[in-house]
Structure formats: C-alpha cells, structure tokens
C-alpha cells in the first residue's frame, strides 16, 4: 500500500467518524426523550439509566391526555397556526406575484423594506404589540396571536415565494394571455400549478415557525384555555414536582407534527432553495 492510498483511507475514516458524530449529537437527545416517555415512573429515576425500557408502557401518554389540558393546547395550536398560515400565504402570494410580475416605481424599495423587517427579532416587536393589543382590546385572543404570527412570518414567506415565482418563466403566462386568457385565468391555470410545490413548502415552513412560537403566546395569552402547546407544556413543567415521564411524552407529541412536516420539506432545504427560509 503506497502513501497516497493510505492517506485516502485515513481521510475517509475521519469523514465517517465526523458524519457519525454529527448524526449522534442530533439524534441522541430525541432518542433519549422517546426512551424516557415509554418508561414507567420508577424506571425513569433508575440508576444506571437504561436506554431500552424494561417494561415499556404508554401510561405517560394516557396520563398526558386524561389528566392535563394537553388536548386543548393541541387544538389551539392547530387552529392558530392554521389561520396564520392561510393569512400569511394569501397575502404573500399576492405580494410575491406583484414583486415579480408588475413594473412600478418603488418596487425594489418595497422588496428591500420587507427584507429589512426579516431581521427584526420578536422581543423588539412583542412589547409594544402587547400594549397596542390591549389598547384596541384584542389581548388574550387568538386573533392577536394570528396577527402576530403573520407579522413574524410574512417577510420570509414573501421572500421565499418571490424566489419561487422568479423560477416560473414569464413567457408561459404571456403565451396563455396571447391565446385570449385573461390574467386571472392565466394565473389560476398556468402560474398556480407551477408554483404549487413552492406554495406548499412555504406553507409548511410558516406552520413550523408558528407552531414553535413561545414568546408571543406567553405575553399575549393569559387564559389557560387559549394557550398553545409550547406555553401549555412549559406550565406543566413548572408545576412543583417535575414528572419527567409525562413531560417527555408531551415533548414527543409537540415534536412529531413539526418533524413530519419537516421531513416533507427537507429536500427543498437540502437543495438549497429554502436556505435562510427559517428564522430564529
């Protein structure tokens, strides 16, 4: 075996060790969560901690659904995130179409302004937002949450949709209109079908962002029956005795929807289309 070949093999070995370490650090905490959520209470606190539960049980999940308001929080999360996605997507689809298809003075300025607000952090917006929401009497409502999620997501959805619309050739639309289609019909039958993958991917990113929000809900929502999952679960966590099995079961239940959606869009991320598509 000559020297370059040896060097090649050692580089490959390093590469595989690095890749394995990356996978381990990302996956292990989740696997540990799954393991803990399936353990009965005495096993949770056993020393040494076992990775595979001796007697796996769904008891923690049953307790989560029956003894806490988890299902209410879950429903609230779905409703609020659903509306936030609908509102954000309608507004940003129109906006992105405008930014890529019409010529008018000030267009690039608007695009720049939108990109600038992408950098605004929630903490800078939420305090005045809260006071304003109190003034117009929408604090402690889902409406306030939907609006704040929209304000948070809109800059990046517009930006992403703009990128998707730019990949759709203008000529297709123009050809349809030359053939006597109105603009509206050209949009519905030519542009939308082509933009659909982009619209779906953007919706999912919006959903994940809204689903993960903590700060807006913490500040804007006071009633227990209106809370979304992250805040509801934190309150479970803050109860005096921490029931780790229950908490891990709750953690799994919040993570699963986010991960399912993530798996659906990850090829866009990896391909690089969605780089910078997520904020935080």
């Amino acid at each position, binding site marked *: 075996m000559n020297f370059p070949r040896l060097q090649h093999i050692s580089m490959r070995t390093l590469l595989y060790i690095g890749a394995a370490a990356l996978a381990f650090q990302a996956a292990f905490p989740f696997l540990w969560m799954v393991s803990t959520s399936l353990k009965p209470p005495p096993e949770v606190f056993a020393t*040494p901690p076992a990775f595979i539960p001796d007697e796996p049980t769904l008891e923690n999940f049953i307790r989560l659904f029956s003894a806490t308001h988890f299902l209410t929080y879950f429903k609230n999360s779905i409703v609020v995130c659903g509306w936030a996605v609908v509102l954000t997507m309608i507004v940003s689809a129109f906006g992105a179409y405008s930014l890529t298809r019409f010529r008018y003075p000030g267009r690039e300025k608007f695009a720049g302004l939108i990109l600038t607000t992408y950098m605004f952090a929630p*903490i800078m917006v939420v305090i*005045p937002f*809260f006071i304003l929401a109190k003034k117009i009497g929408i604090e402690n409502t889902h409406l306030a949450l939907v609006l704040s999620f929209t304000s948070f997501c809109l800059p990046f959805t517009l930006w992403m949709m703009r990128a998707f619309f730019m990949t759709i050739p203008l000529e297709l639309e123009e050809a349809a209109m030359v053939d006597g289609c109105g603009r509206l019909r050209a949009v519905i039958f030519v542009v939308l079908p082509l933009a659909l993958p982009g619209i779906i991917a953007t919706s999912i990113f919006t959903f994940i962002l809204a689903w993960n929000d*903590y700060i807006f809900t913490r500040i804007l929502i006071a009633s227990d029956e209106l809370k979304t999952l992250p805040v509801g679960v934190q309150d479970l966590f803050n109860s005096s005795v921490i029931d780790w099995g229950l908490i891990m079961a709750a953690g799994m239940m919040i993570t699963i929807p986010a991960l399912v959606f*993530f798996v659906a869009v990850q090829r866009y991320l990896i391909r690089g289309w969605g*780089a910078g598509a997520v904020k935080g």
Partner: protein
Amino acid sequence: MDNLSNPRRRQGSPAASDSQMGVGGTGQRLMRFAGDFFRVSKGERSEQVAGYLTIMPALFLILGLTLYPVGYSIWLSLLEKHSFFPQERFIGLSNYIYLWSDPEFWSSFWLGLVYSFWTIFFQIILGVAAALILNEAFIGRNLIRGIVLFPYMIPTIVAVILWKWLLNDMYGVVNYWLVAFGIVQEPISWLGADHIMFSVVLMSIWQFFPFVLLTILARLQTIPEKLYEAAKVDGASAFKRFIHITLPQIRGILFVVILLRSIWMFTKFDTVWLMGEGAGAGRFIRTLPVYAYMRTMTYYQAGLGAALAVIMFLLLVICTIVYFRMFREEADIG
C-alpha cells in the same frame, strides 16, 4: 388587461428609472417617482395600479404589525406606563437615565455579550466544519443531512426540556456517564450558578448551528468541481484547497450568516429565558431580552421594557452599519 400581451414593453422606462431612484435628493426622487407615475401610457398605468394593489396587503400588514409597533415602542419608552393598567405619564428620557445607572442593565448587557460571542463563535466553526463533511460523497449522506437539521426544527420548549433532562443533576444521563467513566468524582450541577451559562451556551450551539450548516452547505454545492480538480492536479493538500478555494467562495455568504446569527443570538429570548426559568440560577444568564421581558411582565414597567427594546434595536442598527462599513467588499459579494 392588455398590458401583458406586449412583452417588449416590460423592459421599458419605469423599470429602468426604478433602479436609479437611489440617486439624487429626496425631493428629486419624489419628483421622479411622481413622473414615473403620471407620465405613462394607459397600459403601463393599469400595470402599475395592479402592482400596487397586489403588494398593498403585504405592505399594510408589515407596516401595521411590525414597523408601527417598533416605532410605537420609541414613544412608549418615554412614558411611565403600567403593563396592565391604562394610566400613562410622559417622563421624557427618565427611563434611559434610570437604565444608565442601573447595575442590572449593565450586567444583563455583559451577560448578553458573553452569551452571543460564544454561541456565535462555535456555531460558525461547527457549522462550517459540518457543512464540509456533509458536502463530501458518502453512504447515507442524505439521511444524515436530514437528521442534523432536527434540532433547528423543533420548538425551543422541547429543546429546553430535553437538555434539562439530559443535564439533570441527580438523574441526568450526562452526569451518570461523567461519573461512570471517572471524568468527575461528583455529579455536576449543570443548572446551578457556576455552570448555567456553559449549559445554555452548549444547548444554544446545539440548537442553532444547523442554520449555519444549511446555509453554507447550499453555497458549497454551487462551487464548480473543476476548481478542486485543477488544484488536485497541482498537488494542493486538502487544507490548502480549503484555504485557497473554499474559503474565498464562501466568504460572501459567511458575512451574511455571521450578521444574521449575531442579530438573532443577541436578541434570543425563549431559549435563554426557558433555560433559566425554575432553575434558581436564572439571574446568571439574564441577558438583555430576558431583562426587557422581566421589566414588562414581572415588574409591569412597560416603559422601561420598551426602552430596553429600543436600546437593543439601536445597538443592532449601529452594529449592522459598522459591520457593513468594515466588510464592504464581502457585502458586495454576498
């Protein structure tokens, strides 16, 4: 609408003048704007109207829900205002003067700098290293590319409870391993005063470095393979290829990533707050965003909270401008 049936015209005047609008004073610009708007044909006019109508909802929401609140917080910072009761009183710059002599403000400012510096530093190093690994071809690459993004996609509350459980002083698996392998004698109180900053930095790196990885990886995939082949023929080592080919190519995007990460780490609220909550040692990681939150929601001093938000905002604006000045070349590439 007939305007689209004539594709030639879309290369016409309004578009060209659009890019020139940055030249000249405000008055001139306004004139040109008005000129563009009024001195156009009927077809162009209807295209402009359609353009304004379709962008309007988005602009309206961004103005009303983001820019107006941020502007309002400047006014709010000049008031003495209870967070829940309607009374308010104008007190000028008193909130800022109070903060200037408030040791708590300076300590949270310092803690925020420490937190941001270490998290950004390691996010960039790890993110670039991981992107280089995942850019090589090997079996199972796509699977691992997916898995490493998990931590970035999950709600912060989940990341926090995961790490609080892993780092738990009595039952945590990290302490168990450290003791079992004889690295430490006694379990370490990871969420205690001495180690909580380390723990929150560690956890934040874990949660956020995938963003760096993702962005750098996307850029690496666009570097032409030819460049590397030529260098290999010339006998350049892997290290040299990184310094002379990869690094210049990712400079531009690295500039943007460092800027974005700095802004977001310095204003990071939920990770730091949730990590410190209930731990008893929370005040050892009380960064500026957490302090702003506490002033507003624990002490009900919305005016002070807003003043802190404004200070953060101004700091970020100033730093962004300085950063762009310092690295003008990179900004052009990015």
